[in-house]
């Protein structure tokens, strides 16, 4: 689907990309991002099953290498959910933007500067975590205190991602100027929306880190406020999950149709869905603070209501993608109400990983609505139900889709065939089964009262109600461990050893369908709405949390 760029030939930045390979500049920059992402999960993923074994009352095994449970858990959360995701998303976004617009990034040099910033950040934060000086988990709530390198490192990762986003915006604007009156391809639309949301949202955590945590860890200030830190973190924390999700949606909306050779059901509603997510994903973060003492019930109810509203674009996506898949199945001769499902490519790792990921995401979406229901939340908050839920969304739908992307992107990046299609397919199926069992068992244990983020291996009291379910989680962990091993075999094999040429071309379209609405690209209007909605929804929460009379009271507690 590599249409020739219709842009005027006078422009300097126009590139033509190989169908089954990458330009060398592309390969180096994107490859550097994918490499760091894969290195991060090479530690992060292996810790997952180890945690499950430590938490199973029947086993209580000590975690290898990282015997202190909370050090391991910090690494698992930071490496998987922050480092892997951010690097993968930035690399993937560059690829999508360059290929869809048929032009180089506005500045490849700035692209490298962003990478270096983020990489130094990972090294700094990694140093703090690996030396056990940052056992604060990936949410690092004040007044827990980590070594200053942890905060500086995370700040650099965020700032680097802003630079990357800026690069993408400028690239888009240059294309915009050269192509008046034309709608941008949907994948780029989604990428721009994602980075607008990300930059707006990460302002919250940047303020938290730079004005509260970093100065506290350096001893520049002596006191801090835990409630305010939680408010600022969750201003960022919810859109963070959408930052992970939108690249997956981009693949579902714009790449799967190409891979299945059918048009997407509705391009316009896809754009509407992305706009809704970009705007509404921030002013709902109080749903992570439902049982916090310093946030009013009114704010909680309002954020709960908007959380319901932000589920609409996801329902829209479910419809749109299901309809697109049905087209694909019927085009392949599938009949009957559900018979078309049998005709999807159940032996193709790129497709299997994505379609199974979507199915898992539906479970995650429904359990997410339960979390968002403020009264139900009292039964669920901080129980293992919560990791059960987000391993079906993040480690399920999102992660499986990223692996589906990796299975076509890595071959064209390395100029090699995917190492083994059967092993890659087996990786997807085992991940699906393992994560499903993980979600069910952790969810059920949570309903029986098992707390999350607890080192069950060192607990003096084990409840007979949840113990059996956490033992089941260990079985799920074993299935997932097999899947992780398969994943590494396929990745390392594709990176270094496999013979033959890549088989799957980059599923990128360079044009928007005729009739794609231009009004959706009124970014300044959307940004104004983001600002207004957050002033209204977060302003009162922050003002109420701040203790204007007494200032900050809490001192820091190093978590060594």
């Amino acid at each position, binding site marked *: 689907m590599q249409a020739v760029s219709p842009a005027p030939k006078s422009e300097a930045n126009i590139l033509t990309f190989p169908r089954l390979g990458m330009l060398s500049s592309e390969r180096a920059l994107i490859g550097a991002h994918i490499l760091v992402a894969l290195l991060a999960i090479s530690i992060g993923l292996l810790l997952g099953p180890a945690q499950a074994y430590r938490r199973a009352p029947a086993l209580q095994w000590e975690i290898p290498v990282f015997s202190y449970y909370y050090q391991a858990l910090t690494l698992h959360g930071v490496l998987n959910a922050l480092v892997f995701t951010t690097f993968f998303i930035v690399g993937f976004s560059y690829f999508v933007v360059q290929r869809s617009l048929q032009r180089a990034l506005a500045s490849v040099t700035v692209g490298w500067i962003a990478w270096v910033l983020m990489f130094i950040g990972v090294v700094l934060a990694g140093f703090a975590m690996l030396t056990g000086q940052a056992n604060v988990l990936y949410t690092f709530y004040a007044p827990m205190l980590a070594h200053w390198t942890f905060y500086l490192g995370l700040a650099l990762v965020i700032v680097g991602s802003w630079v990357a986003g800026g690069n993408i915006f400028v690239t888009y604007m240059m294309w915009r100027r050269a192509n008046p009156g034309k709608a941008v391809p949907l994948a780029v639309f989604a990428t721009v929306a994602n980075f607008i949301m990300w930059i707006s949202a990460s302002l919250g955590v940047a303020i938290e880190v730079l004005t509260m945590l970093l100065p506290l860890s350096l001893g520049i200030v002596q006191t801090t406020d835990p409630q305010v830190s939680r408010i600022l973190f969750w201003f960022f924390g919810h859109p963070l999950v959408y930052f992970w999700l939108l690249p997956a949606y981009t693949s579902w909306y714009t790449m799967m149709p190409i891979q299945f050779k059918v048009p997407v059901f509705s391009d316009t*509603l896809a754009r509407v869905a992305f706009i809704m997510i970009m705007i509404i994903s921030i002013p709902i973060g109080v749903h992570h603070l439902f049982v916090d003492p310093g946030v*009013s019930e009114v704010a909680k109810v309002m954020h709960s209501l908007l959380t319901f509203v932000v589920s609409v674009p996801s329902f829209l996506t479910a419809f749109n993608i299901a309809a697109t898949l049905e087209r694909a199945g019927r085009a392949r001769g599938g009949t009957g109400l559900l018979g078309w499902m049998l005709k999807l490519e159940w032996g193709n790792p790129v497709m299997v990983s994505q379609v199974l990921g979507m199915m898992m995401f539906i479970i995650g979406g429904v359990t997410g609505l339960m979390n968002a229901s403020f009264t139900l939340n009292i039964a669920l908050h901080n129980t293992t139900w919560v990791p059960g839920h987000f391993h079906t969304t993040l480690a399920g739908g999102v992660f499986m889709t990223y692996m589906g992307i990796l299975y076509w992107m890595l071959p064209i990046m390395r100029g090699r065939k995917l190492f083994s299609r059967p092993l890659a397919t087996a990786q997807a199926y085992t991940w699906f089964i393992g994560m499903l069992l993980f979600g069910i068992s952790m969810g059920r244990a949570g309903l029986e009262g098992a707390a999350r983020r*607890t080192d069950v291996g060192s607990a003096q009291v084990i409840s007979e109600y949840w113990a059996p379910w956490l033992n089941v989680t260990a079985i799920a962990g074993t299935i997932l461990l097999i899947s992780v091993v398969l994943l590494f075999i396929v990745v390392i094999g594709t990176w270094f050893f496999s013979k033959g040429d890549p088989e799957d071309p980059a599923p990128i379209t360079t044009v928007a369908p005729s009739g794609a609405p231009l009004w959706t690209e009124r970014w300044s209007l959307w940004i104004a709405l983001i600002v207004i909605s957050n002033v209204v929804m977060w302003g009162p929460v922050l003002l109420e949390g701040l203790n204007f009379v007494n200032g900050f009271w809490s001192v820091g507690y190093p978590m060594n």
Partner: protein
Amino acid sequence: MHIDRLERNYLIAVALVLGVFFAALIAGALVFGVRLPTATAFVNPLALADTQFANPGLRDLGDGKYEAVIVAGMWRFQVGTNEFSETGHEIMRVPVNSQVTFNITSRDITHGFMIEFHNANMEIVPGQVARQTVTFRRPGEYHVQCHEYCGRDHANMFFTIIVEDAAA
């Protein structure tokens, strides 16, 4: 903007279902009294001696109503009782059908509070007073766990509530 007929009907159905769900939530809060903690008061975590938290304990307010003042700290709930379990953790006794309002704060970092099988779940954030009212309808022994990570012995930060039958 063109919207497919099926897709429009689907969206209307989604809106209706979400509306019903949300109405059920509001009803749960207003009719069945499932309430969330709400901002109540600031308290200096380093100067608790000057506040009600100087003397943790259970106070009988009459009419089956009680107030429990508790201080959370690494890694123990100060409940103000003199009874301890085999593991050395506090035990609090309340009669069946009593309605207990918990007032909790933290002396150091953020902790959590969750009574198994009850609508009791709060973050205990230093600087803030967390308040929740719980009715104990079934006699039995209930584990109260700190559910917010708070350092090395977080898993063993708990106490027990024993709900006693009126006959006993």
